[in-house]
């Protein structure tokens, strides 16, 4: 698994193959939109009965990224749980798993629109968090600067020799960095969507996730 080094707000950051963000200077790993408990919520609301293994899968990948980087601080950038009930309904084994991952680390839960308010797991719960020069929050704010946010589940599509390749993607411009969704079973919004083109402006770049993350001008 490779990662791509890039610079944002004067900081050296790494876009990891999995869609996590690694900030070596702060020993900080950031992941966004885990949507833990999504399958459970779908069933609760009468949707398709997907096997309840998505949470385990997401945590497996997070655990691997933590091992790989040796992160000392973790920021979960909102919508970590599919809703508040999902955090309560999480299986005991998965709660234990999260606790194990949290051991010996600073762990920040940023509030999302799916999971506002306190949740019964360890870690610090914040609406937003400033760390060094960067500000972490779930939904990007107008006129923000040096902001890292999630919420949109961005993805980017590239046509190469008649083949369309679509991947979850980081989007960035001078002022903001948008994180791809990290959770299993999360869909995506194309960077060419009006909402994202307006937000990111004409100079934006995209980093496609996948075995070898690639930097490209953001497809519009």
């Amino acid at each position, binding site marked *: 698994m490779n990662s791509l*080094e*890039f*610079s944002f707000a004067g900081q050296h950051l790494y876009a990891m193959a999995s869609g996590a963000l690694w900030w070596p200077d702060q020993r900080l790993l950031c992941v966004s939109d885990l949507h833990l408990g999504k399958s459970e919520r779908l*069933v609760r609301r009468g949707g*398709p*009965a*997907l*096997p*309840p*293994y*998505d949470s*385990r*899968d997401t945590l497996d990948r997070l655990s691997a990224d933590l091992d790989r980087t040796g992160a000392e601080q973790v920021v979960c950038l909102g919508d970590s749980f599919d809703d508040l009930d999902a955090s309560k309904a999480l299986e005991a084994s998965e709660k234990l798993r999260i606790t194990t991952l949290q051991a010996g680390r600073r762990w920040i839960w940023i509030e999302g629109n799916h999971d506002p308010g306190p949740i019964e797991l360890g870690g610090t719960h914040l609406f937003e968090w400033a760390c060094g020069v960067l500000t972490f929050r779930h939904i990007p704010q107008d006129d923000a600067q040096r902001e890292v946010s999630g919420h949109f589940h961005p993805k980017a599509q*590239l046509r*190469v*020799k008649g*083949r369309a*390749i679509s991947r979850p993607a980081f989007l960035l411009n001078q002022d903001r960095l948008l994180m791809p969704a990290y959770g299993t*079973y999360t869909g995506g919004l194309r960077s060419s969507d009006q909402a994202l083109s307006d937000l990111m402006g004409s100079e934006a770049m995209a980093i*496609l996730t*996948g*075995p*070898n993350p*690639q*930097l*490209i*001008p953001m497809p519009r």
Partner: protein
Amino acid sequence: MTQIPARIHHWFSAKGWSIHPHQQDMFDRAQDPATLLIAPTGGGKTMAGFLPSLAELSGGEQKGLHTIYVSPLKALAADIKRNLRTPVEDIGLPIRIEDRTGDTSATQKKRQRADPPHILLTTPESLALLTSYEDAPRMFEGVQRVIVDEIHALAESKRGDQLMLALARLQRLSPDLRRVGLSATVEDPEAIARFLARHPDPCQIIQADPGPDPDISMLQTQEMPPWSGGGAAYAIPAVLEQIRQHRTTLIFHNTRAQAEIFFRNLWLANDDDLPIGIHHGSLDRQQRERVEAAMVRGDLRAIVCTGSLDLGIDWGDVDLVIQIGAPKNVKRLVQRIGRANHRYNAPSKALLVPANRFEVVECVAALEAARAHELDGEPRGAGPRDVLCQHVLIAAAAGPFDADSLFTEMTSAGPYAHLSRHEFDACLEFCATGGYALRVYDRWQRLQQRPDGLWQLRDPRATQRIRMNLGTIQDTDTLKVRLRRNRGGKPLGEVEEAFAASLTPGDTFLIGGQIVRYEGLREMVVEVSRRADKKPKIATFSGTKFATSTQLSDRILRMFAQPDWPQLPRHTADWLTLQRKMSRLPRRDRLLIESFPNDGREHLCVYGFAGRNAQQTLGLLLTKRMEETGLAPLGFVATDYATLIWGLDAVTDPRPLFHIDALRNGLDTWLAGNAVMKRTFRASATIAGLIERNTGGQRKSGRQATFSSDILYDTLLKYDPDHLLMQITREEAMRGLVDFGRIEALIQRIGNRIDLLRLDRVSPLAAPLFLEVGKVPVKGAAEERLLAEESARLLQSAGLAAT
């Protein structure tokens, strides 16, 4: 031995008919527990099946149901009702005959359960549904005979397995039930007999006189067939000429899309305005019925059709059958030819029209096989367990059951005679809990064991859902097409959901021979308007793509070994000669592989002759092996005879690619994530009741169902790979869509005898593959390489240097 009652005999004589020897044989054997009749179409097959019933019922003592007739088509049941009522009414027999299919009204159905007719004409699905009611024992207790028509067709699909499980249930309710099967000519009658009879009852096979050999040849045309494609547009003038020379012509196609295109081309050239109709399974029922009625009246000179006309409805005076495209399978060809000339003892006349150059070879091989009476077919595997799961639920819907006696009942069905108790228990467990990975959900806890040991539904309301989702036919996510009007316009037919998704308003496509304009999608109905000005897109109807049979492929390879080909048209013989000069012709005992550059890419052409599905799978497995060995494949395309792979690097040593263990391993890993496997899984999961298409009132859209079935599959693959449905999917994959069995046979046959030929350009035999549709891209290292190149190029052109 009883005699045929005099009244019935007289009626035959009055009509100027005599009783055929096989009809008498069937009558004499009427007390046997099971009998199979093999007879050509028009041989009085149905009457042979019904004579004993008419005789037994002629006294008027029978109360309730006596005979159940099962046919694969609703239309056939309706047809038989007409044909059977004529003699019954003429002779004045006290017999009530009714049909019961998906089209029968609810009131009628209810009445039939309370007061069943003497003879019930139905389909496998409707019969299975009847067995799911609590009052089934009362309805079926006196039933004496069951007649399975067109059993050769039913035996080819899971509908047959379903029927045999339903018969096993009937037999338990009425132990004296006698079974009769009516079949067209097949290669292995014994197999059909074992399929039909209660295991281990014997089953006598009666062969009717097959009649004279058909008059069959290849259509002579001025134009040469093209290098590839399936349209056969070149043959339109010659086909029209044939229609003019005959009274009624049936023009068979292998796929619905081809039938639509051909029909349109035929009309464009139809200067005499000959009445020509079209008939296929995606057309609206009303449309089809209109064509059928016109056909019976003799108003049509030709019908362009697909397999939907394969079965034995009597279409009147057909005197010519034309098969467009290679028949792929000699047995089906022979059965189709039997559609012409229904008068017994007159030869049927048929013409084959190859759609492209390779099909010329295939058609000639099929002609030779048909003349030699060499029929083909794959041996039927054991009954699939997804159908078994459905029947466990059906049994539960009918009432509490004992596992031991259900096992005994189900293993009395021919297809399940060798089912082990362990396999049965796995199905029961699945129905009870959903299987390990799904046991946490209430929804799958469907059965529970009572203190007395019987199994019953946990929630009695589940019966309705079980009945609504009964059946094994996979209508692959089609949407209805209607003309846009104020209040629901005229229904035209159906298109595949995936095709509908590709349309934008203003696009035009062909359906039922007319060009329509896509207006929009409303409540799962494709709304269109009539339009005739633009060149249409072609709807991708889900006509089954048959693979060429092993026997026919072998015959083609034997033909390749000839020094020259006097039986082939000149252009085709020249083509093969050129291939022999430039490269080699494939042989049965060796595997020919050509490697050549073309258009800046490296190509590999593997002539496996394993049939379309197996060649497709071979493409998937080989590209996976190439990916592992760093050969950067980009994609492949498969036909019945070869797989063409292209990529960034040339293959110099093919042997490591063909290790059977590595390929089998590939089947377990790479192929596991493949769309074909997911499709197979979806079908089985739907049949076994894990995915419900109908959930009380609203029907899931195909895409919703695809979404959840794909995720289900991925998750089971990861966390519960031995889940019953994953086992079933792998079993299915070995035959059918994946057809790994044929790849294994190929590799065992050729062993180390692999010939890699390096050519400096495309060979004559490989050239048509470049024109094939259905190219499959490979996502792998080559994609990463392309992505990296493209990323660098984009950054460069944007004036940015990569960080």
